[in-house]
């Protein structure tokens, strides 16, 4: 149940677990910004390498990561196969009468690398946080209260709802329900969803009642320890610089330095 939401957070090395969750949120934001501003495959590949290195450092379970990536890569595969044939440009090769363009291949490669960098980066940086930690970090980063509370309450009741769904499903199976593609199946699923909605609404009313009983007057409070330390600042700076590397290189600002490559 735990692995549904966070990826092996207990396997992380101690130094990483002690870090303030805000560090990862800011780092993830920076990573995404850099990734979308890069347009050259080589620069993107080096950023992806950095992300994979980070995943290794945080001891992210590779099997779990690939499991998560699978759904997303299926979609990417279609895109990668289609793009070379749909982008106009210098022809590279022919396949069944359609010609693939050089620009199309490059575009596909860029999108593939960029998307993988961002997704693996998010899974590594944010996916390893407990959802509660993420909520607190977002709250401390001064995101609108309403959004933070919505997020935290969703996390809190997701499993309660999931349990309710499972109970209803079991009850259906106990009465020999097997999904087919007929009216009976669709109607039964409709009732299942309807019942879940009704129950969720009733539960939300009970939760509100319980909150009112404890003097709720429109404000939720977040209590957590501020753990930001010098190490967090240092690591954030290091990450920002490292991630900025490919971007500086691509925009030609590194050419002045000795050893700076000229594309």
């Amino acid at each position, binding site marked *: 149940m735990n692995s549904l939401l966070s990826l092996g957070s207990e396997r992380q090395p101690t130094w990483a677990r002690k870090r303030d969750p805000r560090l990862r949120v800011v780092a993830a934001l920076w990573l995404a910004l850099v990734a979308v501003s890069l347009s050259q495959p080589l620069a993107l590949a080096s950023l992806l390498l950095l992300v994979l290195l980070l995943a290794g450092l945080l001891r992210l379970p590779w099997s779990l990561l690939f499991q998560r990536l699978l759904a997303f890569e299926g979609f990417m595969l279609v895109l990668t196969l289609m793009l070379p044939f749909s982008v106009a440009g210098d022809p590279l090769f022919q396949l069944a009468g359609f010609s693939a363009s050089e620009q199309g291949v490059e575009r596909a490669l860029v999108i593939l690398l960029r998307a993988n960098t961002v997704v693996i980066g998010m899974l590594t940086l944010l996916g390893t946080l407990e959802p509660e930690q993420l909520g*607190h970090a977002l709250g401390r980063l001064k995101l609108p209260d309403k959004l933070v509370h919505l997020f*935290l309450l969703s996390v809190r009741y997701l499993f309660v709802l999931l349990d309710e769904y499972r109970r209803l499903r079991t009850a259906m199976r106990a009465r020999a329900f097997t999904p087919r593609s007929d009216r009976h199946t669709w109607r039964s699923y409709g009732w299942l969803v309807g019942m879940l909605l009704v129950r969720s609404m009733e539960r939300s009313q009970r*939760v509100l009642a*319980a909150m009112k009983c404890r003097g709720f007057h429109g404000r939720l*409070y977040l209590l*957590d320890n501020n753990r930001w330390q010098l190490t967090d600042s240092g690591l954030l700076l290091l990450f920002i610089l490292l991630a900025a590397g490919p971007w500086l290189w691509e925009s030609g600002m590194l050419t002045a330095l000795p050893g700076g490559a000229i594309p």
Partner: protein
Amino acid sequence: MTEAVTETMTESIPLLELREIAFQRGNTPVFSNVNLSLMAGDRLALVGGNGTGKSTLLELIVGLHRPSAGSLHAFGEHRVNEAGFRSLRARVGLLFQDSDDQLFCPTVIEDVAFGPLNLGHPDADARQIALDTLASLGLDAYAERVTHRLSGGEKRLVALATVLAMSPEILLLDEPTNGLDQEAEQRLIAHLQALPQTMILVTHDRRLIEQLANRAALMQEGTLVDAVIHSHPHQHTHAHVHIHPRGEHSHRSHSDPVPPHSDHHLNDSEA
């Protein structure tokens, strides 16, 4: 509209007084003509069949529903509107039947501190109150735990902590032992017995009534009637079911063919 209850002597002013309360859901009457006075130190067991409105009555006392007739006085004040009930809720704590309804914060400490924070305590104080309350229930180690990963028994105790953190004078317990195993139940009852608060408990659990209640009322035919928890010596035989692993103790017999029972007998509340 604050109308002090002056007709009774100062010492015997009820903490809570319901006068001819009626409630209906839509057009269906749930109960009517409910009269109840709760005195300090009372531990009233509210019993009755399913759907007779026992839980509804508890919710009505803290103002989650409004009665269709009758009046409610608490701590010497007539409570009619939301403002009246808001100040009442700080002094009357309701423990919900389903703890998942009550625990909505990400961590245990935040949930327990939620009430004190609402009462206007600063962060540090609220945290201390929450820690102290948790410690009083033997839950010290749970402060930083994530609420949705607790077991049913743990959730119920934490829910009790969230209520106690507001230091209420009256506790309303809605089926507190429902869904708990014997060990969790005994632990909860032990904690409840140690509490000084006046209580109303809605329950079907005989053991809970035996060990906690000193008064009883019965919800019957749409109204509340006073009941007596009576004790009378009785002789009966019944099967004692012992559950133990196969092969173990199975040949041992009871030394006394009729084991003595004592825990069926209750003190007469009127005595």
